[in-house]
């Protein structure tokens, strides 16, 4: 799956693909720690960041990753594009494809659009998030961060808590971690859970005690305040009290529990500052560091393998 069509969702990757991308990322991480933070691997290759939805952190992470592999990066964002002139997404992508890039990094607000685009484009795509569907590189970097700390995924109790409904991270996490044998729990207000979540393979709970007890890993999701117009929970204060993670609740988990968050954090809402800044438990900044390595690995595998060589 990695070859040819890129990485559009962890749903489509099998266990060995995921393990290979994560393994390679650990080797890539060493490069970011040297004084010369660059290897010549993808010299002469062009990576296009095609962002139809605003993003600073993910785009920067992909850009740094591509540059550390010596690829050229072109950023294309919707605000400055012809989208505002009425061009369709497929037309926009095909126009850029005509300039012969080697890989597209695409973010889009429409769930499932990567499937559509990958049918229309010959260039491999790495998804940087599509709507509420998937954010595969975030899922991979979460797996890497857990592997780094726990040396395994199999059999761990992983709690994903918060705004599951709007979260593409939750979906990528459950696909990826499920394939690697983790016991994943979704913990959130019932309004954030629809029937189809049961089919993803996670245990669903609305009780904080059940969720956090003996957890090895807790992944707190951001309450997407900008998407809360529909009133899925009564107030942020109540949410914080019933569903937030604080020092007391963390005591329910295993002593060596790690806490992760895809960022940006709403401090005091889903995650208390004490937990967010805990040296012992918080791995939030480690996730960001690993994100660059995972994206280097994703770009390397997508270009280094799938691309058919046609000679110079």
């Amino acid at each position, binding site marked *: 799956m990695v070859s040819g069509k890129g990485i559009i969702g962890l749903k489509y990757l099998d266990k060995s693909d995921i393990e*290979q991308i994560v*393994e*390679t990322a*650990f*080797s*890539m991480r*060493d*490069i970011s720690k*040297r*004084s*010369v933070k*660059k*290897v*010549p*691997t*993808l010299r002469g*290759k062009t990576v296009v960041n095609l962002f139809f939805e605003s993003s600073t952190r993910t785009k920067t992470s992909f850009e740094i990753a591509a540059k550390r*592999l010596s690829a050229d990066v072109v950023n294309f964002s919707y605000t400055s594009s012809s989208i505002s002139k009425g061009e369709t997404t497929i037309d926009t992508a095909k126009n850029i494809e005509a300039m012969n890039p*080697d890989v597209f990094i695409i973010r889009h607000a429409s769930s499932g659009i990567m499937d559509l685009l990958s049918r229309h484009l010959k260039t491999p795509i790495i998804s940087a998030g599509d709507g509420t569907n998937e954010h595969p590189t975030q899922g991979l970097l979460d797996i890497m961060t857990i592997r780094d700390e726990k040396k395994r995924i199999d059999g761990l109790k992983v709690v994903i808590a918060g705004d599951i409904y709007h979260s593409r991270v939750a979906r990528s996490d459950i696909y990826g971690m499920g394939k690697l044998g983790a016991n994943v729990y979704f913990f959130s207000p019932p309004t954030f859970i629809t029937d189809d979540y049961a089919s993803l393979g996670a245990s669903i709970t609305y009780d904080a005690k059940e969720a956090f007890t003996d957890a090895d890993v807790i992944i707190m999701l951001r309450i997407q305040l900008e998407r809360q117009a529909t009133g899925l929970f009564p107030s942020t204060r109540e949410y914080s009290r019933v569903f937030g993670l604080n020092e007391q609740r963390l005591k329910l988990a295993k002593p060596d529990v790690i806490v992760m968050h895809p960022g940006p954090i709403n401090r005091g809402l889903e995650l208390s500052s004490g937990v967010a800044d805990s040296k012992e438990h918080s791995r939030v900044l480690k996730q960001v560091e690993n994100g660059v390595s995972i994206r280097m*690995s994703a770009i*390397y595998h997508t*270009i*280094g*393998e*799938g*691309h*058919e*060589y046609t000679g110079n």
Partner: protein
Amino acid sequence: MKNVIMDAPAIERALKRIAHEIIEKHTTAPASLIGIRTAGVFIASRLAEYIKQYGQIPVQTATLDITLYRDDVAMGTGRAIVRATQINFPVDGASIILIDDVLFTGRTIRAAMDAVIDLGRPKVIQLAVLVDRGHRELPIKADYTGKNIPTTDDDEIKVVLTESGSNEDAVYLIKKGD
């Protein structure tokens, strides 16, 4: 057809001789042996043992993965797995000896030199190989050679070592078409 070019005693003799040659040339600076994955790593650690045994000169070893420096990564040559490079000493000013099993086109060594130079500015880089089979495509020459073996372009040289799970040490020359 598969011919044994070097058997275990021959490999041992060749590596011991190379160890003596390295000792001769490294009277002051420590010899920094960098093995190129995978076979080069095993040869480097054997050489380090011999050097300690005969020379009492300081010696250190490291491991280099050159996958990201290859010039054929994007040619769709298959799944290239990137393994860790582990060099736990400063490369700046070091007296480095790259170690590989077979010297052929020289492209691996070119990649290895680039990889090392990205880590710092060594005082000198030398090259030690168990087998030199000719057919260079780059201006590269070994400083220490176990054995020169004349080959044709499509011959295959296979080095098996006990460290990689083989039950013997040997170098084979495999002739195509025979």
